[in-house]
Structures are given as C-alpha cells and as structure tokens.
C-alpha cells in the first residue's frame, strides 16, 4: 500500500533557506546552569582565576554548551504537521572557544529532508545545519543534526 509522502512541495521549499540570524549573549550564569545540569565541575568552565593562566586565558563554556543553546528558537520551522519528535543525533565542530560576554550570531537551515517507514508509522528525518559566529565575525562552531518527526 503506497502511503502519501510526508515531503510535500510546501516542505521542499524550506530546504536550504537560512533562518534570520538569532543573537545569543553568553552569560556566565547560563554556563553555570549548564555545568550543574550535566554535573561537570571542571574549573576551566567556571573558575575565572583558575582558567586565566591556562590554555584559553580565561573561563570558557564547555564545547557542548552550544549544542544545548541550539534549542533556543533558532531552528527553521518545517510545517510538517507531525506532533511527535525524537532526536536522531548530530555532529558539532568547534573552532573557537566561547567565553562569557561573547555575543554569538546563529543561523541555521534545513539541509535535507528524507522519510522512512518506521515502527511508529511514517517518519520524517530533518537534517539541520547551524553555524555560530562571534562578535568578531569569526567562525565559532558548526553543527549538523537530525530530528525525527512522526
């Protein structure tokens, strides 16, 4: 039985269109909450005095801090009408450390849409690419992640 494709013409139009840039100010308390949530007490992230004379010359956010910040309304809207979502995974590349006080500009776009028949019905796989730049317009990080809607 052929079921209708989830990838409509309307959805195809979303592919490759970048979002308006979102500006994120990195504040120390957000980094502290992040570290507390994962249970990471590395002084490189939170202790400015300790970190000053080390590799980064001051406290920096743990690299995956940006992966979590991804959730703050920066992803493109894909009007698929599906209610359920699972995280399929992703990869993140880190080019420069992120420091408290940095102002990052984030843009993302849908790079690919695919579909597959799964245990819970037809599933839509959305691959989103995200780029973070800092206030000096330097590349900070890039990500490519997959979400699964069904």
């Amino acid at each position, binding site marked *: 039985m052929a079921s209708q494709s989830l990838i409509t013409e309307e959805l195809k139009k979303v592919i490759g269109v970048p979002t308006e840039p979102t500006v994120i100010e990195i504040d120390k308390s957000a980094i502290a909450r992040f570290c507390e*949530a*994962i249970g990471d007490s590395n002084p490189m992230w939170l202790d400015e005095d300790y970190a000053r004379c080390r590799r980064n010359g001051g406290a920096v956010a743990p690299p*995956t801090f940006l992966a979590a910040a991804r959730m703050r309304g920066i992803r493109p809207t894909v009007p698929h009408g599906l209610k359920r979502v699972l*995280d399929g995974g992703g990869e*993140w590349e880190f080019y420069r450390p992120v420091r408290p006080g940095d102002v990052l500009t984030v843009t993302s776009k849908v790079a690919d849409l695919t579909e597959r028949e799964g245990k819970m019905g037809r599933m839509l796989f959305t691959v989103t690419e995200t780029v973070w730049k800092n206030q000096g317009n330097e590349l900070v990080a890039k990500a490519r992640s997959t979400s699964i809607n069904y």
Partner: protein
Amino acid sequence: MAKQIYWEDVQVGTEVTPLKKSPTSRQLVQWAGASGDFYEIHYDKDFAVSTGLKGTIVHGLLKVSFLGQMMTDWVGEQGALKKIGCQHRGMDFPGDGIVCKGKVTKKYVQDGEHLVECEIWAENPKGEKTAPGTAIASLPSKAK
C-alpha cells in the same frame, strides 16, 4: 584534575577514561531548564507513554554533553575537543545508569595540531550502545 595526557601517550586502541552518569528525573528537569528543551517526553510520564514510549527518556543532547564531558576530562586542560557527534540509536531512562566510553581509532598531525580520533559511545546497563559516535580532539605534544 587528572594528570595531563600527551599525544605521545596514546596509541590506536587506547581507552578514553570512562565517565559514569546516573541521570535522575531531577537531572532531566535541570537539563530542560539549562538547555531550553521542555518537550514533555523528558519529565511527564503520562505524556511520554501517550506518545508510545515506555516512560520518560533522557534527552539526546544531555547524552551528547556527557560524552563531551568524558572527552574534555580525558584531554585535560591542555587538550581541546574539536568535534563530537553521535547517533541516538536507543533510549535511556532516568534511574538507569549510563556509562560513556571511548577508544582511540586514529592519531595524526594536521596543520601543526596533534589530533586523535576516537570511537565514543554511551552504554546502558545491558551493555547496549545507545549513542554511538566519534570525537576528534587535540592533545599537547611532548615534542613541542
């Protein structure tokens, strides 16, 4: 902090120091607040069950961050995590333990940086790899 590891200290097959985590519902709520991911499957059991899950599940990005912590702990203050990625193949449930593990699969020098590539994964109590992936990190070299 553990003793600094150097590029010369590792070989293909060297184990990344494992990191044990025991996420609770409380931690998932903390993570929801810290990450901004308030999807109910992570803290509302009735909602999670209504979507076909067996119960609330651990956020995928929390597992990525656990894997990231394993890597930053292992590479130490003079190392740096350059890349991390994983697929979410299986679900983890609050109350079950998760162990992050990894091993070196490649070591090389590129653009003057001493790098290692590692196979990494999060493992559930049954020994299943729920989040397999890879990481690339730079390590300090004794030669420098």
